[in-house]
């Protein structure tokens, strides 16, 4: 019987498209590279060994679980910065290189300023909700190769 229920494959495809639309293509690319690596699974018995580990392609549920892990861990940065502000008590938190031009990695301050528009309570509530629904549906993060 045909159904029109939403599947994890649909959500995964939509999430990647949405990320690219909001300018987070780097995050979408990172998710795609990660799921393409496949999943490591223990194998109780094989012809060669009593116990072994094999590599298999990522399933649709695992792809969605991986995307959710990337999105929730990236989206929670402002929540972490709130904790930092409350512990250090300063009016603002900044990152600076020791000497201009010597930094080996670029810390992008501009998006952090943009992120100040975010409603932390709403973001926290939605993130908690997403994690809870993913848990209910047993969308568990696999061992990525």
């Amino acid at each position, binding site marked *: 019987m045909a159904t029109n229920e939403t599947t994890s494959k649909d959500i995964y495809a939509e999430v990647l498209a949405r990320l690219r639309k909001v300018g987070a293509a780097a995050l979408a690319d990172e998710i795609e590279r990660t799921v393409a690596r496949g999943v490591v699974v223990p194998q109780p018995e094989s012809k060669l060994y009593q116990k072994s580990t094999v590599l298999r392609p990522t399933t649709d549920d695992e792809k969605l679980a991986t995307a959710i892990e990337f999105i929730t861990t990236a989206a929670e*940065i402002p929540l972490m910065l709130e904790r*930092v502000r409350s*512990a250090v008590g*300063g009016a603002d938190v900044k990152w*600076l290189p020791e000497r201009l031009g010597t930094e080996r990695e670029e810390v992008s301050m501009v998006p952090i300023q943009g992120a100040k528009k975010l409603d932390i309570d709403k973001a926290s509530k939605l993130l908690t909700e997403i994690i*809870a629904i993913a848990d209910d549906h047993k969308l568990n993060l696999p061992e990525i190769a």
Partner: protein
Amino acid sequence: MPTLAQLQTSISSLLDLPGMPAVLQLNSPTRERAFEAYVFSLLVAAIREAGGTAEIVGRISGPNPGVVIFRGGPGLLGSNAQDFVYANCTLGNRRFEIHVDVLYEGTSEAIHELDVSVYDHDAAQRVRQAPNMFAKTNKLYAAIECKCYGETLGTSLGRTFVGLVADCGKLELDSFVTNGLSQGLVRYFSPTNRPNRFFRLSPLHPAHEREFIDFVKQTLRKWAKVA
């Protein structure tokens, strides 16, 4: 039970929040620095909860700086190039400091980057007299490797940290912490002689946050001989 369609709606609502695109555009080094600062703040909280004091000090401006400046990349403990902050702490009779992103000279004389570290206060004062000198690990009490979740979270990071810790001499506390999960790292850190590890360390997982704070509290209280 909520349906997958509800999951889809929640994800869409999250991505639609004003300011969220800017958050998701943060590059990986920026997320790493933010996570390190968060772990620093958890250590500060742990010391205060343990009955100690933790005062935020700017390298140039002194206690309680108006703007809190962290290193944008690994640097020298005594550097006075910027007003980098550290936490000046006491617990029992111990005086020590918490630093973020500092380069140390290990027992082999190789230079190592430590994301979050706890260092002896008197030794740090001496290092600040010679700002271009690397602090040595013989007065290092704690080393914490912080990794914000990303595609590179894998066993190689665990191996690197184990090697780093081996070159630091005796430490009171050594931990690998991440806001994500890696089953490979869970297995890698499972032998009892490996550093402690904390996964899903994040404000979204209060139980894990509490577990880490309690662990730091207990370890430092025991070390400082505080009941």
